[in-house]
């Protein structure tokens, strides 16, 4: 491993505007060398523009791009030690697979490319296909050629622009693992752009969630999932139940909230909004953190857990778990996922239930933001 940090990517105050439209608001971002970094967001959130500014295909309107200690802001793409795997691959249709992969080496004046190209094609398991044209390969094979064509140049950073978007689900899973394996093997910094939250969480060490040209939150997949700080992140990564609650009092490290006549406890550390008595916060809880108990057994629920009452509106059995929709006074579509370990036969639509969960799994968000930001309903609207 190199130790000169030359594979760091540092974006300082970088932004991009097209006329009056701001694609990327000034943002600072550091991608440490050797990490697998994902830029996650819906289409039009500025993630691809950010990637293209690192590649040099887009000139930033302000700010600087550093690779290690080198300022590359004004270098053209062909002078940057960075390579890109393009969306839909952009393989050269008039060249065969071998020449596609050799392209970068030849442009840098390297004469004997044969051995390197063959080794690279072996790495992506395409040794047999060297003399075929790109259109003769399947989508998954083309994708691997695109990766090989970029990696052979030993870039300091590999940029991936929705590289798996054109593949079907099964192949996508396979390629996710494959890319992760290659990244571990070569140890190059990967910056990966995707709109697929599952893909970002599976592959990346660090994920930056982008929305409207800004980074909403940055962190490890687990951190983002467990401690979302905005409703967008809470809804975009997985599913969240969000309810509006009023701050009742502070009790040591906890905040006591009032919602729908009941009391909920939220650890102060997990609340990203200022909580003053009488003010409002959004309380969030992930569906799989909630337990369901039939109303008749409400007495058996241990003390100290947050609880809400409701009625089962819908139940769908999906094998490993059952997904319930609960109609409760605070929220009429409360999602609850219960593992199918011991199924209670009484939990059918129409049954009265108590939902309860550990306060430690509760998170609090600023109530001033749209409660449905980042949900699919919002995206459709």
């Amino acid at each position: 491993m190199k130790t000169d940090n030359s594979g760091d990517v540092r974006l300082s105050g970088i932004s991009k505007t097209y006329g009056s439209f701001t694609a990327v608001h000034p943002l600072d971002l550091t991608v440490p060398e050797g990490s697998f970094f994902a830029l996650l967001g819906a289409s039009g959130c500025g993630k691809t523009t950010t990637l293209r500014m690192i590649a040099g295909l887009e000139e930033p309107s302000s700010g600087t791009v550093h690779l290690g200690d080198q300022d590359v802001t004004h270098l053209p793409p062909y002078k940057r030690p960075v390579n890109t795997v393009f969306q839909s691959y952009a393989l050269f249709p008039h060249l065969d697979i071998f020449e596609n992969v050799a392209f970068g080496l030849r442009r840098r004046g390297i004469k004997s490319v044969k051995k390197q190209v063959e080794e690279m094609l072996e790495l992506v398991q395409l040794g047999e296909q060297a003399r075929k044209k790109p259109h003769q390969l399947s989508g998954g094979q083309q994708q691997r050629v695109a990766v090989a064509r970029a990696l052979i140049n030993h870039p300091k950073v590999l940029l991936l622009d929705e590289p798996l978007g054109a593949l079907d689900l099964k192949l996508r899973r396979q390629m996710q693992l494959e890319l992760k394996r290659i990244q571990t093997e070569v140890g190059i910094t990967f910056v990966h752009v995707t709109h697929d939250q599952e893909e970002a969480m599976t592959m990346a060490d660090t994920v930056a969630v982008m929305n409207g040209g800004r980074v909403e939150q940055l962190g490890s997949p687990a951190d983002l999932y467990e401690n979302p700080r905005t409703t967008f992140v809470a809804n975009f990564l997985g599913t969240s139940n969000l309810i509006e609650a009023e701050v009742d009092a502070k009790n040591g490290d906890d905040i006591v909230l009032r919602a729908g006549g009941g009391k909920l406890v939220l650890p102060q550390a997990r609340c990203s909004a200022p909580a003053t008595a009488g003010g409002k916060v959004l309380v969030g809880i992930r569906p799989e953190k909630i337990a369901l108990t039939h109303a008749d057994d409400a007495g058996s629920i241990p003390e100290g857990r947050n609880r809400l009452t409701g009625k089962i509106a819908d139940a769908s059995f999906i094998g490993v778990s059952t997904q319930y929709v609960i109609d409760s006074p605070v929220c009429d579509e409360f999602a609850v996922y219960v593992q199918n370990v011991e199924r209670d036969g009484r939990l059918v639509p129409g049954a009265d239930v108590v939902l309860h969960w550990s306060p430690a799994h509760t998170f609090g968000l600023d109530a001033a933001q749209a409660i449905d930001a980042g949900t699919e309903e919002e995206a459709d609207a």
Partner: protein
Amino acid sequence: MPFVTWLKRHLVVIAGLLTLAYLLLPNVVVTVFSFNKPKGRFNYEWQQFSTAAWKDPCGVADMCGSLSLSLQIAFWATVGATLLGTMIAFALVRYRFRARSAVNSLIFLPMAMPEVVMAASLLTLFLNMGAQLGFWTILIAHIMFCLSFVVVAVKARVMSMDPRLEEAARDLYAGPVQTFLRVTLPIAAPGIAAGALLSFALSFDDFIITNFNAGSTVTFPMFVWGSAQRGTPVQINVIGTAMFLVAVLFVLTSMVVGNRRNKQKA
């Protein structure tokens, strides 16, 4: 009715063959009559098989001179029109500039304009400018009307080209010149070649515009026209058949080469 069933089943093939015959019959006549030994000055009735004309293709006074002139004009018109037309096509697809859409439609005008009118207008223009009619006026006129066809052919190709291919080239250490030579040009090549072939054929064929602006210069189509009034030498058919054979050979070679290349790849 077995015949009706048979007809129904093979209707597409029959229609195809009839159309092909319709297309090729004139060529067959040209070829057959290139082996004729006509009685008088006109080669319109079949008399007797002879290879005399094939053995002496330049036997007719001035014919090979006009043929060589036509080939030269066609060559230079192709070079000029292809160069200019390719550049125009790239400009129209790649750049947003004032009057772009106007230029886009103006390019089509020479194709839509009746040739006779254009020929007469060109003559007016050349005479007013005091230009000496001949090789150069013909060449200028030919480049002008071939241009539109090149632009149309190349534009279609450039428009369907994924802009990411050039970005990929730049990303892979190819500077602007390298990107153009290694990626843009090879991918646009089929369109450019189509435009060039079309230009060559159009220029070589052209009679009307050429006739108006040639002065005392005589191209091959003008020679054929002129001689047709006094008698048609068999050599005209020989040249026609030879041109046809060259074109067929050209197509066959490119097909064989293409096939072999594909087989090697597989």
